[in-house]
């Protein structure tokens, strides 16, 4: 099992700094969450790990491998997968093609098929709609495709960016149960969310981000009672 170590990360777009001297650890085999309100810089942390927004300073490591500034496809080759914010379907590709792209770096056709069957077992709805264009599906169904696609590469580490965004409470509950199950299969999960209560319900450890800085960290239990968490959201 592999974890993520971020040390003294600073990132920005143009001249504005978005993240300031951020250090955090995602321990192998855990669900570690990063909480924060809109604009706190959560997605930028994900983009930095993926190599989409190269950091100005600091290092990011997966296990013992330094991935700071590495091209995205090489980061993915380290065993990382991402379920991006807003699901990001390929709307004019079928459900099956979307899932196949999740396993783009897998060359073993039998393995791809086996993983697709596993996804279909988790989401029987997708099996019925495998030939449907993803863009014509409902938000909840697209979320299923997005989660399934994130699992197709058989990742060691999964980054999940705001899975609850724009979904009905029923789907949110369902998805969090699935994320809980992903961790139980030995996948390290880094979960970025606004939804504090649901997230701390499944997370092992958490960080709170506000204005590009970490303002609190601790076990999920400790964060539930933490005044900083309440301040960051309601203060």
């Amino acid at each position, binding site marked *: 099992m592999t974890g993520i170590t971020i040390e003294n990360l600073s990132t920005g777009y143009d001249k504005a700094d978005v993240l300031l001297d951020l250090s955090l650890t995602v321990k192998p085999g855990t669900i570690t969450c990063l909480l924060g309100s809109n604009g706190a810089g959560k997605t930028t942390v994900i983009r930095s790990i993926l190599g989409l927004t190269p950091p100005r300073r600091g290092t990011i490591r997966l296990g013992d491998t330094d991935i700071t500034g590495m091209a995205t*496809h090489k980061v993915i080759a380290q065993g990382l997968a991402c379920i*991006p914010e807003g699901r990001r379907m390929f709307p004019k590709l079928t459900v099956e093609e979307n899932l196949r792209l999740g396993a*783009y770096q897998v060359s073993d056709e039998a393995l791809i098929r086996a993983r697709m069957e596993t996804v279909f077992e988790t989401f029987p709805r997708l099996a019925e709609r495998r030939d449907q264009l993803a863009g014509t599906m409902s938000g909840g169904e697209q979320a299923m495709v997005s989660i399934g696609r994130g699992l197709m590469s058989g990742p060691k580490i999964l980054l999940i960016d705001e899975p609850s965004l724009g979904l009905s409470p029923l789907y949110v509950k369902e998805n969090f149960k699935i994320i809980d199950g992903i961790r139980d299969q030995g996948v390290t999960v880094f979960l970025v969310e606004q939804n504090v209560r649901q997230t701390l319900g499944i997370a092992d450890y958490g960080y709170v981000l506000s204005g590009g800085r970490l303002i609190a960290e601790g076990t999920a239990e400790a964060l539930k009672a933490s005044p900083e968490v309440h301040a960051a959201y309601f203060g």
Partner: protein
Amino acid sequence: MDIGLLGQYLANGIILGTMYALVAVGFTLFFGVLDVIKFSHGDVLMLGAFTGFTAFLGLEFVGVTDPWVQVLVVTLVAVAGTAFIGAVIARYLVLPLKAAPPLNILLITLMLGTAIREAVRLFYPNGSNPKPFPALLPDASTDLGNFTLRADSVILVAVGLAVIVGLHLLINRTRLGLAIRAVAQDEETARIMGINYTMIVLVTFAIGSGAAAFAGIMNGLYYNEINFGMGLLLGLIGFSAAIVGGLGNLYGAILGGFLFAALQTIGAVALPFASAYKDVFAFGVVIAVMAWKPTGLIAERTSDRV
């Protein structure tokens, strides 16, 4: 009109349509993956034709005279060489300018096209004069009533259509094609899937440029002549075909190519004015179609690419 003549026009129309479609496919692929219009595309086609012609001269020089071997080698060298040139243009000219306004890329590729054209005119031996392209395909003919079926026409039609079907299969049935379509729809998410974006862009430019070179060789074999300015009209026709069909859509480009060839053929034979007006007629209809369907016949919806 008698049926034999009609068959001849149909064969000519299909050959021209295939050529135009192959050029249009390039425009549509480039626009799909990179949102750019590459105006040097026609001149890259010309470069492909001259590469093939040079390969022919080389074969003659070393004494390879079998026409089948010649046509095969000429085509392979032209397609492979031009595919490489296309990838180099993408790597060193188009990709570095990705963040620039689209108008700049359009202008720069327009200038690149002029540079390629002038370079061939000035530096290719006797480059300002047309070159007689060898008739490498058998010209045996069978008389079917009034219709003379020529072997070279049949071969051009068959191979041209096979290349178009091959491109369709490549884009829609292979892992590479899936990656190209993914990049066209959402570049960033494609990267997150582990797709090497730069590689896909280079391969796409190689495919489009190779297809243009193939069209250039077809053009040479069909008219038995190539010249440094041949890319101007072919590029413009390919671009119009891609736009009329719906830029970004592979089938739109193919449809547009055949439509333009049909218009030219109709303009040349069925209308009451001289055949010299065929391009005027065809481009006039293109203008009318654009006024009627501004986004092309197969309209691109917001995220519909390739």
